[in-house]
């Protein structure tokens, strides 16, 4: 299906309701959908179950905690082991107001990929013998034990790419790829903010990072200024 263009990030979120499961692309500042996150804050959607690599670490996701919009997060980086700096999310976590499921980063991205690729799970040695393995099934393959990690799906993915064409093909830049191309496959509704929208045919077929089939909505906006952590 051809992607639908929206004028503003706020418009692009139409129909998103309380209790939604949202995947957020990005790794710290790279590939982070900063305008869509700010629009989600303005929208006031609550009870969000989020999935993101990081929260409170150069992303804007921690701002969603200001008005208690998050019910929980699946993340790889959420609460610093050291450093005195505390995020709102950490405070709410310690008060039992939000849930947190930590997933090792390679497992996290592979679970998303499995969710998008119709695979039943991920067999990995990562996490064995650690709290990550608690309560999970293990499978033996050729005499080696693997942890079975289950696929991740979302209702909505909020992503960021450098450019899109009007069909929905996405071109990424630099380390802006990270989780975005995988999350684009694993959500029912994929909304992408881009710095530029071009005509169909202007993105080199060799440079398409996410084929149009995965993209539902696009909106053009300059990234929100953020501070490096």
């Amino acid at each position, binding site marked *: 299906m051809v992607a639908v263009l929206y004028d503003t990030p706020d418009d692009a979120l139409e129909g998103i309701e309380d209790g939604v499961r949202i995947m957020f692309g990005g790794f710290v500042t790279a590939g982070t959908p900063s305008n869509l996150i700010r629009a989600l804050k303005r929208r006031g959607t609550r009870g969000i179950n989020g999935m993101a690599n*990081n929260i409170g670490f150069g992303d804007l996701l921690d701002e969603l905690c200001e008005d208690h919009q998050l019910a929980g997060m699946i993340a790889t*980086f959420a609460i*610093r082991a050291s450093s005195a700096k505390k995020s709102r999310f950490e405070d709410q976590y310690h008060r039992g107001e939000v849930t947190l499921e*930590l997933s090792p*980063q*390679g*497992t996290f991205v592979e679970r998303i990929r499995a969710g998008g690729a119709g695979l039943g799970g991920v067999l990995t040695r990562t996490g064995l013998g650690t*709290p990550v393995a608690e309560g999970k099934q293990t499978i033996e393959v050729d005499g080696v034990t693997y942890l079975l990690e289950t696929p991740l799906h979302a209702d909505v993915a909020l992503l960021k790419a450098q450019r899109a064409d009007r069909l929905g093909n996405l071109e990424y830049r630099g380390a802006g790829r990270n989780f975005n191309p995988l999350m684009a496959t694993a959500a029912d509704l994929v909304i992408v903010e881009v710095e530029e929208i071009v005509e169909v045919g202007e993105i080199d077929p060799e440079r398409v990072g996410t084929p149009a089939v995965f993209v539902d909505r696009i909106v053009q906006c300059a990234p929100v200024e953020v501070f490096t*952590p």
Partner: protein
Amino acid sequence: MTSHAHPEGLPRELLALRVAQELRAGMVVNLGIGLPTLVPSHLPEGHSVLFQSENGILGLGGIREDGIFDRELINAGGQPVFLATGASFFDSATSFGMIRGGHVDVSVLGGLQVASNGDLANWMVPERGGGSMGGAMDLAVGARRLIVAMEHVTRDGTSRLMERCTYPLTAQACTNLVVTNLAVIAVEPSGFVLLEVAPGVTVEQVIAATNAPLTVAPDVHEMVL
């Protein structure tokens, strides 16, 4: 034990230099957040170590300190970086396929605790709760050789090298070498083996600062920095 019981040993920059000495031309190396990010500046000019950054870069250059910030060109710690010639970008699934699949020669991670069986704990302080493993668990499991770079003792003087970790593990039996401010210690099937001591630090001081049996290598010597 209080911190006054243990010598200062190396400052962080020299610890990073000692880690840098473990890297060889052509190696593919991933550096964890924190102290490990200091390593590249101690490599000789024109080195051919290829740095992998878990956020999707092979061929990471040095940290950019000219004030220009490109949000799409950062290392795993979120710092702006330069690219080395011959670099490439890829998504996180490819990045962790590279890591988990054994294509990274050396991973350098920070540590909270290392046990004499090679167990590493570096993602959670139980008193604080929550935690963040990022890519550390995959790196610990997948890298061909794991170097842990850390202070030998905590601020209150407790050893970070012990018989069994008390903190939640990052991975089991994964550590090959520990480089601290006091010593270079190999993790062998028999346990910790002391290879080198920091300048001005004695073998006895390292033994005293280590809460596990420590075999002293026959050719133990002072680090050459």
